[in-house]
């Protein structure tokens, strides 16, 4: 909150962006998002699309893990459901892509509910392990339900079409992926201004007392599962349109761990967290590559270290943030902001 920002109405106080300054920043961000594709080359556009897909999926996982307190290691598998749904619909029926994306989300949500059912009886860690089981079982389905998924070979699909234009480049996909992601992030932000979002947080903080305060636990846990997998499904659908090949090996367990890492690093239980985290974690390998490039004149075989170093950095980020900065990048960002708002009066 900015100094001296007094609000006149409750509506203004409840708004997503509380001050004109914030609204201006948001407008600026939107403008930058619109301008970006015209300035960047294919590589940066590719990364931007990838970041956006990861933001969408991480935002979904954040609803479940960050806000509801249920750890899932199945996010990638749910993305798989979405990707296969989109691929099958696109190849067999050629239905419009928006419809396919919604179907992808809904089917993934159904999968999420199914996996979430054990949350009736088990909680926390057991549930996390159940989601690992789910991701293996789904992998088996993808690899062996040959009549639908074409087995291990997977499905190759045509691009999405919008008014007859094939969305077959990063530049064109950008205009599909980024708006959908922005909508999904806004949806999550809205959710936590209402009773449903509050119920999720209550379940995370103290699920037993939440129940006594009138929140049916199973229903809301399943709702959180469904919503988080809906996000994963849509993100998986976008992923399918972006890469246009879907195979069982496209969605491994490490990808689920990646999303978990993204929200940990970004900051769990905040809207900003998954955005920062997914962008950061997607960019880290690229940055490391640059670093190795710089080092290679001095360090022999620096290139050979890239992949293991990436693995180490990945793990170290998870551990480091959990131990030293459990609120993640979002909290660091808040501190920076506070510093500048008060500067130079107070440091």
């Amino acid at each position: 909150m900015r100094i001296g920002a007094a609000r006149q109405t409750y509506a203004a106080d409840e708004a997503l962006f509380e001050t004109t300054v914030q609204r201006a920043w948001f407008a600026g961000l939107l403008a930058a998002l619109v301008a970006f594709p015209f300035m960047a080359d294919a590589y940066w556009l590719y990364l931007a699309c990838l970041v956006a897909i990861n933001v969408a999926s991480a935002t979904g996982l954040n609803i479940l893990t960050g806000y509801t307190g249920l750890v899932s290691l199945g996010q990638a598998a749910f993305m798989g459901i979405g990707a296969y749904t989109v691929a099958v619909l696109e190849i067999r029926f050629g239905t419009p892509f928006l419809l396919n994306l919604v179907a992808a989300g809904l089917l993934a949500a159904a999968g999420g509910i199914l996996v979430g059912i054990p949350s009736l009886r088990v909680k926390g860690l057991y549930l996390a392990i159940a989601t690992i089981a789910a991701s293996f079982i789904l992998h088996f389905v993808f690899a062996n339900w040959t009549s639908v998924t074409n087995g291990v070979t997977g499905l190759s699909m045509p691009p999405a079409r919008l008014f007859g234009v094939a969305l077959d480049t990063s530049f064109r996909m950008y205009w599909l992926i980024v708006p959908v992601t922005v909508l999904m992030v806004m949806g999550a932000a809205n959710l936590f201004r209402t009773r449903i979002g509050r119920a999720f947080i209550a379940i995370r903080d103290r699920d037993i007392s939440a129940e006594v305060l009138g929140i049916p636990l199973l229903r809301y846990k399943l709702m959180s599962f469904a919503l988080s997998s809906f996000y994963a499904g849509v993100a998986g659908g976008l992923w399918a349109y972006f890469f246009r090949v879907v195979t069982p090996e496209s969605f491994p367990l490490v990808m689920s761990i990646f999303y978990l890492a993204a929200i940990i690093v970004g900051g769990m239980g905040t809207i900003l967290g998954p955005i920062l985290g997914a962008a950061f974690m997607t960019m880290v390998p690229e940055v490391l590559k640059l670093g190795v490039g710089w080092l290679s004149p001095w360090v022999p075989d620096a290139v050979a270290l890239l992949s293991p170093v990436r693995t180490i950095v990945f793990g170290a980020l998870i551990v480091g943030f959990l131990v030293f900065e459990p609120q993640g990048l979002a909290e660091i960002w808040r501190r920076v902001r506070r510093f500048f708002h008060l500067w130079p009066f107070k440091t």
Partner: protein
Amino acid sequence: MTEGVAVTPALEIEGVSLSFGGLRALTDVTFSVAEGSITSVIGPNGAGKTSLFNAISGFYKPDKGSIRFHGAAIDRLHAPERARLGLARTFQNIALFRGMTVLDNIKLGRHAHMRTGLIDALFYFGRARREEMALRAEVEQRIIDFLEIDHIRKASVAALPYGLRKRVELARALAMRPKILMLDEPVAGMNREETEDMARFILDVKEEWGTTILMVEHDMGMVMDISDHVVVLNFGQVIAQGLPAEVQRDSAVIDAYLGSGDVGDLRRRLTGAAA
């Protein structure tokens, strides 16, 4: 003031027994809470007071007996459904949600009375928006002002001092639009001044909102001051009930506290209350 009024009691506990494994927590507990009264449950530590609260709010299922709310049995209802009927409560060891602001904690209390669905919530149009605005206005005007916590509405509950947290918990319970407000040790751990504040709030709730109050409390002074009816539990059984003054004289009550070693404490409190 409610004694002798011939209406259906707000809450009737009838023959409720509860055990964990072989341990009997409650045995054949029977009493009723008159509409609009303040009823206090007292007893030594481990007498089963909190177990009784948990049974009423639906967290524990009694082995035997029945609980009626305004004449209708609620034994088959789950905790959230009981909350929706208007059974609101606070917790002995404060169960605020640390990840939310004071305001959101209070708003959470209204959960069961809101209709916003998932889709509404994601888009924050129509009903979601209207409901949230109405809730905010009501919480501000009826609860935050009333409990004098407007200065902390945006604060995180984790940072609040103990007394204020208790007050926020009361605020959240009030947001549940309670027909019966169950307070589990509302002034435990408070100093004299805070206790008096809380007692005033409780009386105000009863007077202004017409809410029936069922309370578990150790502070005899406060119990005797504001209660209309007192129920004494010991080893899970009701050993006495009646007007505060009657209970104070009851020999079984004094024995119970003697047996539990709390007698000196009780004497002090009783004399304090009488003085």
